């Protein structure tokens, strides 16, 4: 397996959508190729960090205000 082939599989690897045979080929490549190993681990980490940290927080008071406004508008519309 080449680095380019690995890169093409990256998304499927992250989503765990790779067959067992292909997976072992990937593991063989990763054992020899430190660059791809780093890319694999840090890309996974990137996704995890974005998933676990709220970057656009909706503060409770604003949430309540918007919620009330939405429901008021819905009630008026019918």
């Amino acid at each position: 397996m080449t680095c380019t082939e690995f890169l093409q599989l990256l998304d499927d690897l992250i989503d765990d959508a790779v067959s067992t045979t292909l997976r072992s080929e990937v593991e063989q490549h990763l054992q020899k190729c430190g660059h791809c190993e780093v890319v694999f681990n840090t890309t996974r980490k990137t996704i995890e960090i974005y998933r676990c940290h709220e970057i656009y927080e909706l503060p409770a008071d604003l949430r309540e205000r918007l919620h009330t406004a939405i429901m008021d508008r819905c009630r008026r519309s019918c």
Partner: protein
Amino acid sequence: MSTIQSIAGQNEQHPDVALVERVKAGDVSAYDELVRKYERQIFRIAQHITQNREDAEDVMQDAFLKAYEKLDQFQGNAKFYTWLVRIAVNESLMRLRKRRTGKMVSIDEDLKTEEGSVPRDFADWAPNPEQNYNQSELAGILRKTIQGLPHGFRVVFALRDVEGLSTEETAETLGLSVPAVKSRLLRARLQLRERLSRYFKRKTAPTAQHGAPSGIDGALAQPKGN
């Protein structure tokens, strides 16, 4: 997020179906429940696309109102949430267009960049690198980094990886093909990784430990994941 990737099988009804039926029958309180359930996600998606707090507030309100008014057109076999997200994405793109008056905004814009299609930075990251920053520093880094993506990549990443929609749902929501979503997702992921590397890579040549226990010990003591 777990609400989206429902474990429920095909023949088990998604709880939203009953709520939608109640709304259609005139029960506004059922809509109140749906709004409460999804308002944070919709706000987040609107922020991701518009990059503007006021616009996101407007989009959130308009999207829920529009969904309410058009609920008759909602087909029960689609998921309410993805249908709602599609409305919110369209509203967000309209806002973006208004801001850049006269300029067409589509999700196909600005995608010619080659950046990120090939990784360049191979430095390994520190273990749990996000813990080297406090909450607001980290949020600032993550915002700044994702804001630098072309919005056609940003929205795919936001829906697929942050909100947890499937590739097919993301494609349907954005009116893109599955291969187009896949290629954008890979580029988005790689670009973000590349840019975050600047903040998260392991500091080379660690200086002598002057009895600072927070470093290595602290890192090792961290529980996996959070």
